[in-house]
């Protein structure tokens, strides 16, 4: 469904990605991890067609998005929902206008119908429509903003693919739980393929079946949590070292206490 084939990308003279290859299948949930500045967010931007690689292919449903014309890209993007870091909500619009943005811009649905759909979506992402529909993004907490952004992506394009850029960064534990539960709920109920970018390992274990570690622009690891634990690659070891204790705790909770075993 989504595939990167030997993708290389630079910002000016600064190389960001080198020969990156991986693919994510239908209904699969993958997390791209790595230290800050390793090129994780750039991968999402490439998948969405916001950047064009200097080398390689970015395949969405078999089409290389980087070679498509803007009009075709727009059609392809309708299958992709993107939740940007910090939500990227339009700060001059209310929560309701943010969530209904796509419908307001691209459809001729009656305003009442759009409002009805917006309210339903706010309920789906676990927010009280009456309380927040007329608020501005700046009046919301970080967790609420992230959930509104997820709702906006869902209502906009009814996506088959969801991309999350650092969905839990900067949130309190309660908000992290809410956002992670929403991501899992979406993945399970709608069979949406998911790629989340994060450097929060504990969160990554909570939402993904597959782990891709990007280190200095290269894919250092691609596999399951068990393979990740056993990986002897020095770059992966270096990245995981600070998180060893939480890694062990989460792995135990998920695979031993959860009954799957290692």
């Amino acid at each position: 469904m989504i595939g990167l084939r030997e993708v290389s990308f630079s910002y000016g003279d600064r190389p960001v990605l080198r020969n990156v290859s991986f693919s994510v299948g239908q209904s699969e949930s993958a997390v791209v991890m790595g230290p800050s500045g390793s090129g994780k967010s750039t991968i999402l931007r490439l998948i969405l067609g916001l950047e064009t690689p200097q080398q390689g292919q970015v395949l969405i449903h078999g089409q290389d998005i980087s070679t498509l014309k803007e009009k075709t890209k727009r059609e392809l993007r309708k299958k992709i929902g993107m939740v940007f870091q910090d939500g990227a909500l339009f700060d001059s619009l209310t929560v309701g206008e943010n969530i209904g943005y796509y419908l307001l811009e691209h459809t001729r649905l009656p305003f009442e119908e759009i409002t009805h759909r917006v309210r339903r979506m706010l309920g789906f992402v676990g927010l009280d429509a009456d309380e927040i529909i007329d608020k501005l993004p700046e009046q919301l907490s970080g967790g609420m903003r992230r959930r509104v952004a997820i709702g906006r992506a869902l209502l906009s394009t009814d996506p088959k693919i969801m991309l999350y850029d650092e969905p839990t960064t900067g949130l309190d534990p309660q908000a992290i739980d809410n956002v992670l539960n929403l991501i899992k709920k979406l993945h399970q109920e709608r069979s949406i393929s998911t790629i989340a970018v994060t450097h929060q390992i504990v969160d990554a274990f909570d939402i993904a079946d597959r782990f891709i570690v990007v280190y200095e622009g290269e894919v250092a690891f691609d596999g399951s949590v068990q393979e990740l634990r056993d990986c002897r690659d020095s770059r992966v070891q270096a990245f995981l070292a600070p998180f060893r204790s939480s890694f062990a705790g989460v792995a135990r909770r998920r695979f031993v206490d959860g009954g799957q075993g290692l």
Partner: protein
Amino acid sequence: MQILSAVNNWLKRFANELQRLFYFSLRMVAALFGRPFYVAETLEQMYLIGVGSLYLIVLTGIFAGQGMALAYSVELADFGAKNYLGRIMAIAIIRELGPILAGLMVAARVASGITAEIGAMKSSNQLDAMVAFGIDPIKKIAVPRLIALVIMVPVLTIICDAIAILGAYFVADFVAHVTPTMYWSNVRGRLIFGNLFIGFFKPFVFSFIIAFISCYKGFTSEGGTKGVGQATTNSVVMASITILTVNFFITKVVFSLIKGYL
């Protein structure tokens, strides 16, 4: 040798920047044509630019007109030509002072606002979010501002001209003791095609300069809050210098073309 190399690098960067600005301007002009048309956004920008700049234009216009009238009345009195103050003021204000003053004031107030707003949207990924939802940010954000400027800068210039000439009249009447009939008949005598053409053509060109530079600087700003601040300053400086430079060349070229009408 090092100095030559530094100059060479600076020239290359300057040429590159000019080329990027040129291509961006072409994209803005191309985006003017074809659907969708953002009428509500354009009207909102016309209000913000026109009504928002009115007090600034009125204040600067009246005081600049009075200042010039004071200076000229003393000099003209030495030659016994005080009665021609209206004629001099009409030419100076309509051809030069009005367009430059309105252009610079709008550049200072509006260009900074446009660059800061677009820059902030860029740094918070709102522009990328628009692209993700199939909306062209140049069409949605830049074009309404361009149209609003092209309509409102000439209108503001006319107001500035009228207020400056009125301000000069108060000085002519109460300080220089030129009779109102003499002053206004001299002003009317210089409201001829050549002067009016220069006076209206200049703000039309200045509005494009302000729109192209301020939007370009906003769309290309980098480096978070500091970068947006720097882009805003550069936008105002670049727009102001370009307005003053282009003003000279318009005066020179138009003078030679329509000399017979002046």
